[in-house]
């Protein structure tokens, strides 16, 4: 069953094995984090570390894939862990019901940004860069989103968030979340398979309302 599970990915066996051997850390298991987790477990990632201190609330129902009336009030990391295990019982999962720490990214090959605060993103990016672990960034608001890869030679998060101290709760449409999460999963896949991507040196600005997509090149440091 194991080989057949991912056969329709169409990847060669070496690449599929690389994904199976990989550990992905997901920080924030709500909108972006939950969706990306679902895609990556179906892709064939073998190990996950999930971190989220929060519980599902009613206002998460519009966009968070594992938020249902049954999971309201339950911890997001724990629920996502259970759901990933249902999709693939062979997957290895650790979860942390707490804010992220160095432990959340220990032994991870890459980290998925599912956070919703500038301050936390800046802190996470700093920890990831110190350990040379790439951070696949995604963020959403209304019809708009952005995605790109932060790493040592391309500190994207500093570019995007250094000028801000605002921290509001944005309105987000479910389509925006699904699109940006899919792109984060695609960037994660390419990074793990050592395939180059323009978003490893910049970011993509997505406007679902006007169907306008702009690739922005990050200045080299």
């Amino acid at each position, binding site marked *: 069953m194991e080989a057949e599970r991912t056969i329709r990915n169409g990847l060669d066996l070496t690449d599929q094995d690389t994904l199976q051997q990989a550990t992905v850390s997901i920080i924030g298991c709500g909108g972006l984090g939950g969706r990306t987790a679902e895609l990556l477990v179906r892709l064939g990632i073998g190990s996950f570390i999930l971190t989220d201190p929060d519980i599902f609330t009613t206002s998460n129902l519009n966009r968070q894939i594992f938020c249902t009336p049954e999971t309201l009030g339950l911890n997001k990391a724990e629920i996502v862990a259970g759901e990933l295990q249902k999709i693939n019982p062979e997957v290895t999962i650790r979860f942390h019901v707490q804010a992220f720490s160095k432990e959340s990214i220990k032994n991870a090959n890459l980290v998925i940004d599912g956070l919703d605060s500038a301050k936390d993103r800046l802190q996470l990016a700093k920890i990831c860069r110190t350990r040379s672990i790439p951070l696949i960034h995604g963020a959403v608001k209304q019809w708009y989103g952005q995605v790109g890869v932060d790493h040592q030679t391309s500190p994207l998060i500093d570019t995007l*968030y250094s000028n*801000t101290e*605002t921290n509001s709760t*944005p309105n987000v449409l479910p389509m925006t979340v699904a699109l940006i999460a899919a792109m984060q999963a695609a960037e994660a896949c390419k990074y793990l398979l050592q395939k180059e991507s323009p978003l490893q040196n910049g970011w993509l600005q997505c406007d679902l*309302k*006007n169907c*306008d997509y702009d690739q922005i090149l990050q200045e080299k440091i």
Partner: protein
Amino acid sequence: MLVTVKLFAFFREGRFIKEDRELPEGTTAGQVVDDLQIDREEVGVMMLNSRHCQFDRILQDGDAYAIFPVIGGG
């Protein structure tokens, strides 16, 4: 002088995506933001001719000026 201003994400709401704007000599990047009634605290990134710039940067004829909001949700 003529400057091409491009707005991103929700800054486009009620404004425009891209517009050539006639501006007085000496206009700064920050003044364009103010003229568009964009709260400076909502601005995440500004790029002038594909390079980062700050609010006090004086614009030149023919510049392409892009303004990106902070997008924070996850």
